[in-house]
């Protein structure tokens, strides 16, 4: 196989996965504990949910879906997975 071009692409895509997860964690943690640490009487509510939960879990989820769609559409590359040989039969 040698230095396969496909592996360079795969390494880059794995890195994208790590970056996405770190971003996801920061968003999730930041809003949950940033807005959620005050006492419950001071909570503001958005569309019926406490603000910390709305931003961390609901918007956070939607943001991740949008980011994944962007990554798939613009950053991932189509590559063939076979080495041009067929599955061996036993």
């Amino acid at each position, binding site marked *: *196989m*040698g230095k*396969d071009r*496909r*592996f360079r*692409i*795969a*390494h880059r*895509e*794995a890195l*994208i*996965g*790590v970056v*996405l*997860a770190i971003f*996801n*964690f920061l968003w*999730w*943690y930041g809003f*949950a*504990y940033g807005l*959620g*640490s005050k*006492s*419950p*009487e001071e*909570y503001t*509510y958005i*569309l*019926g*949910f*406490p603000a*910390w*939960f709305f931003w*961390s*879990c*609901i918007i*956070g*989820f939607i943001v*991740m*879906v949008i980011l*994944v*769609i962007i*990554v*798939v559409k613009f950053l*991932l*590359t*189509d*590559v*063939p*997975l*076979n*080495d041009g040989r*067929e*599955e*061996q*039969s*036993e």
Partner: protein
Amino acid sequence: MNWDVLVPLLLFLVIIFLIGIWSNNKLKQSKSFLSDYFIGSRELGGLVLAMTMVATYGSASSFLGGPGAAYSIGLGWVLLAMTQVATGYFVLLILGKKFAIITRSYNAVTITDYLKGRYESSTVVILSALSIIIFLFSAMAAQWIGGAYLIQSITGLSYISALFIFAVAVLVYVVIGGFRAVSVTDTLQGVVMFFGTLLLLIGVVIAGGGLDQIFADLTAENPNLVTPYGNDGNLSALYVSSFWILVGVGVVGLPQVAVRAMSYKDSRSMHRALIIGTIVVGFIMLNMHLIGVFARPVLPGIEVADQVIPLVALEVLPGWLAGIVLAAPLAAIMSTVDSLLLLVSSSVVKDIYVNYLKPDATRKNIQKVSYGITGIIGVIVFLMAVQPPDFIIFLNLFAFGGLEAAFIWPVVLGLYWKSGNKYGAMASMLAGISPYIAIHFYNEANGSLFGVHTVTVPVFISLIAFVIFSLLFKKKIKLNY
């Protein structure tokens, strides 16, 4: 007996049998029995790939235990559950195309096959096959017990009859249909979970008098229920964050999930699965855990928290709709069990029988052995679930976290670190499992070590072991990529 509820459930079982028969027909036309039976000839499309990953992972624990915990603990547990959104994209991006390419070039149909090709060591093969067989066997038995309880609580049948129905239903389609039947039924089950949780959430919100009313009731009962810190204020940010390892990124190391990352047809299927998987896993987790929290004002005082979902479904929905919705947790359990059953069977057949006992087996022979072993394992699990022995319960405690700690680095670093070798892999597997068990007991006795979930420390220990032992024995172990 409540026929309104039962008819949709029975219909669901019939469809699953039909999928088993259809898969068996495709199996007969395939070129390679092993590859078709255990990974569906690597031809999963995007939707099926996404659904089978989500469904395999979303088990009884997340479907009955999760909402139950949310019922007792409050919104903090929903926050914890949302760490699982990461599984939707992380596993497929990290293992990614490289894993698909390399497992194809090894002709691997199990994780053990991949480790065998990568490390060329029979010790690694045996360690891997044994940990899969022991841990997943126990995990499976625990899920069967969950499935039987669920059928029991819906139908009012005795535990044994419920278990029997469950066992027959699962065994028939897994034994005759193999991986293709499992992944296609997973897709159906994923769809049922997706819409089932949505319907039930809407039902609960209406029954609770709208979101404002529900949150007002929760705050009136105990303001901690709407904070991220749990009903008694003890759910620390650090502890919740450590679930990112257990149910978020660590899932890469679960053999039943990783094996799916070698089964897709082409890179376009993988791209589609990334989007669908992230949406479906996030949606299901958010909905079903919110149902748990919202059920509190609607049905206060439920004693066995695991029964929250069945009880609330029967309470807020008309019978026939409750039947459809309750197919969802049943689907969740079945879709986890079927994958585990097939994985344990593939470990016995491919990793042990074909590797060591009979390398020159013919197709007919392998076929007979595969059906036989899958069936026999199913029967043994059934017998164990009739009266669960203590060691099953005991091993199940370690199953997921222990396997993650054992497999994550040999799989991931095997892919991305050239100097990783068999000594690193062996050390890492042993160093993952043993501290896991030790820390489990420490935590039981003294509270969580460093305030994090049991899985956290062993994952780091096994990383260090992998790196140190790989470097220590860095010899002329040559790789061709």
